[in-house]
C-alpha cells in the first residue's frame, strides 16, 4: 500500500533522511520510533508531501504522492501534526468538519460521516461544545477526529499521545488501532516504546536518518537495536494484557 523507495532528505548539518526503503501494507498500526532527531517527523512530512525529498519517492497504491493534485492527496491521506493549536474557539463539530472541506459529498453524506467519526471518537456529547471548554485529552480526540473524518487510506500522526495523561494515551491508541482494523494504514511517530510495543502491529526504527529495522515490536526492540538507537538497555516484561519495560543506561565501558 505504502511504498518508499530510496528516500533521502537533505538537512543543514547532516541529511535528515538517508536512503530509506520501506513497504507497508494496509490494515495495520505502524509505530515510527527512534531517538530525538532520528528523522521520524521528517519521514512523516515527506510522506505527507510537506517536504520535498532530495532523492527517492513515496508511492501509495502505486501512485507517486507528489504527482497527485492536492485535492486527490487529501482524499488519500490525512496528517495530524505534533503541536496543533486551533486558533479560533469553534465548536467540536465545526473543527471535525474542516477535514471534509475538499471532499465532494452531499450534505447527507457529510452529516453521516461526521456522525460516524464523532461516535467513534466518543465526541457526540461534546459536538456542540466550543474547543476552549474541552480538556487536553478531549481536544486531542477532536483533532484526531478531524484527521479521521475523510476516511483516508493512510493516516499519519506525529506523536498523537504527546502531552496526554495515561488514560487518554491508551484511548487514543485504541482508537488508532480500531482505524487500522478497519483497513487503514496508520503510521504514528511514538516516543513511548512500551506503548508502541503493546499497540503497534509493526515498528519502524530510525537512527540518524537511516532505517535500522522494520518488523514486529519484539524483533525491532532487541538489545542491540536499543543500544544503537537509544544508547540504553532494557528489561521487558510481557503477559497477555500487555508489555512493560525498565529502561536503563548502558553500562559505562572503559
Amino acid at each position: 500500500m505504502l511504498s518508499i523507495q530510496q528516500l533521502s532528505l537533505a538537512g543543514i548539518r547532516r541529511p535528515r533522511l538517508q536512503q530509506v526503503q520501506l513497504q507497508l501494507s494496509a490494515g495495520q498500526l505502524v509505530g515510527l520510533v527512534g531517538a530525538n532527531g532520528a528523522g521520524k517527523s521528517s519521514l512523516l512530512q515527506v510522506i505527507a508531501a510537506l517536504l520535498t525529498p532530495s532523492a527517492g519517492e513515496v508511492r501509495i497504491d502505486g501512485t507517486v504522492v507528489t504527482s497527485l493534485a492536492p485535492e486527490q492527496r487529501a482524499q488519500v491521506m490525512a496528517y495530524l501534526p505534533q503541536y496543533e493549536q486551533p486558533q479560533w474557539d469553534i465548536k467540536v463539530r465545526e473543527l471535525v468538519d474542516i477535514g471534509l472541506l475538499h471532499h465532494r459529498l452531499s450534505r447527507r453524506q457529510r452529516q453521516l460521516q461526521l456522525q460516524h467519526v464523532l461516535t467513534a471518537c466518543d465526541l457526540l456529547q461534546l459536538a456542540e461544545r466550543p474547543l476552549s471548554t474541552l480538556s487536553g485529552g478531549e481536544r486531542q480526540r477532536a483533532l484526531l477526529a478531524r484527521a479521521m473524518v475523510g476516511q483516508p487510506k493512510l493516516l499519519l500522526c506525529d506523536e498523537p499521545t504527546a502531552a496526554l495523561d495515561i488514560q487518554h494515551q491508551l484511548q487514543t491508541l485504541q482508537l488508532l488501532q480500531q482505524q487500522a482494523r478497519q483497513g487503514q494504514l496508520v503510521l504514528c511517530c511514538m516516543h513511548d516504546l512500551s506503548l508502541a510495543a503493546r499497540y503497534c502491529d509493526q515498528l519502524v526504527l530510525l537512527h540518524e536518518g537511516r532505517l535500522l529495522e522494520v518488523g514486529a515490536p519484539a524483533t525491532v526492540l532487541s538489545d542491540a537495536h536499543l543500544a544503537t538507537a537509544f544508547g540504553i538497555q532494557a528489561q521487558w516484561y510481557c503477559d497477555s494484557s500487555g508489555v512493560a519495560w525498565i529502561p536503563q543506561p548502558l553500562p559505562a565501558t572503559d
Partner: protein
Amino acid sequence: MTVTARGWGWLFILLAVILSGWHLNQGAATVNWLDLNDLQYTIVMDIRLPRWLLVLANGMALGLAGAALQLLLRNPLAEPGLIGVSSMSALVTVTLLYFGWLAAFSWWLPLAAVAGGLAGLLLVVLLAGRQHDIYRIILAGVAVSSLAGSAMGLILYLAPNPFAFQEWSQWTLGSLANRSWSHLGLLLPCLLIGTLLLWWTRTLLTALTLSEQTVATLGFRLVSQRNGVLLAVAVLVAGSVVSVGIIGFVGLLAPHLVRLLGQEHPQRVLWLSAPAGALLLLAMDIATRLISGARELPIGIVAALVGVPLLVALLFHRYQRRFYE
C-alpha cells in the same frame, strides 16, 4: 437565549437602518423627506446620499479586509491600518496625485493603490517571517507604517506647495467631508472584486483555524488561494483609501465585535464583519458630526479615539485568554 449568526446579521441590518435614518438627517439644512424642494433634492442627491453610501461601503470593505487578514494570518490583532497596508496604499496615491501623474478620479488610481497595499502587505509578511508571530507582525507593521508615513511626509515637505500638509492630513486621517458619487464609483468596484475574491477563498480561511502545515495537507492550492486573500485585502483597502483616505481600527474592531457576540466560526466572522463594519463606521460618522464644530473633524481621528483604547484592552485580554495564545 442564543442568537444565531443569521439573527445577528438581521439585527445589524436593523440597527444600520435606524442609524441610517439619523445619518441622513444630519446636516445644516433640515430636509422634509416627503416633499423635497429643488435645494433639498440637491442636498440629498449630491451630498447626503453619496456620503451615506460611502460610509456603508467603506465600513463593509474595511470590516471584510480586517476579518480576512485576521483569519489569513491567524492573528486576532491583524488590521490593514495597523500593519501598514493602508499607509502604503495612501503613500502611492498621494505620490501619484501630488506630482500630478494621475488625475483624482483616474481608474489607474485604485490600481496603483492596490499595488501599494500589496507591496506593504508583502513587506510585513517578509519581515515577520514564516511563523506569522503576533508580535512580529505588529512590529513589522509599525515599521512599514512609519516608513510609509515618513516617506509621505518627506515627499510633501520637499514639494514646493504650501498646501501640501493639508493634502497630507486628508489622506492620513481619512475624511468623509466633500465626497461625491465619483468617490463611490472608485470604491464600489473594489468592494465587489474584493468580496468575490473572498468568496473564492472562503474555505481556506475556515481551514486556517488549524496550522498552515495541516492546511497544506487538506487539499488546498495554498499559494494561489493565499495570494487571492492578500489581493482581496489590498483591493478592499485600496478602494477605501482612494475614496476617503486612511480610516484605521474599523478592520480591527468589526471582527472582534462579531466574536464578542459569540460568533467564532471563521465564515461567520468574515461575512458578519461586513455589516458590523458598516454599522461601526456609520456610528463613528454620526459621532464625528455631533462633536465637530464649524470645521468637520476627520473621521480617522474619531476612529482612532475609539479604536486605540479597544486595541489596548484586546492586548491585555490576550494575557488572560488561553485560546488566543
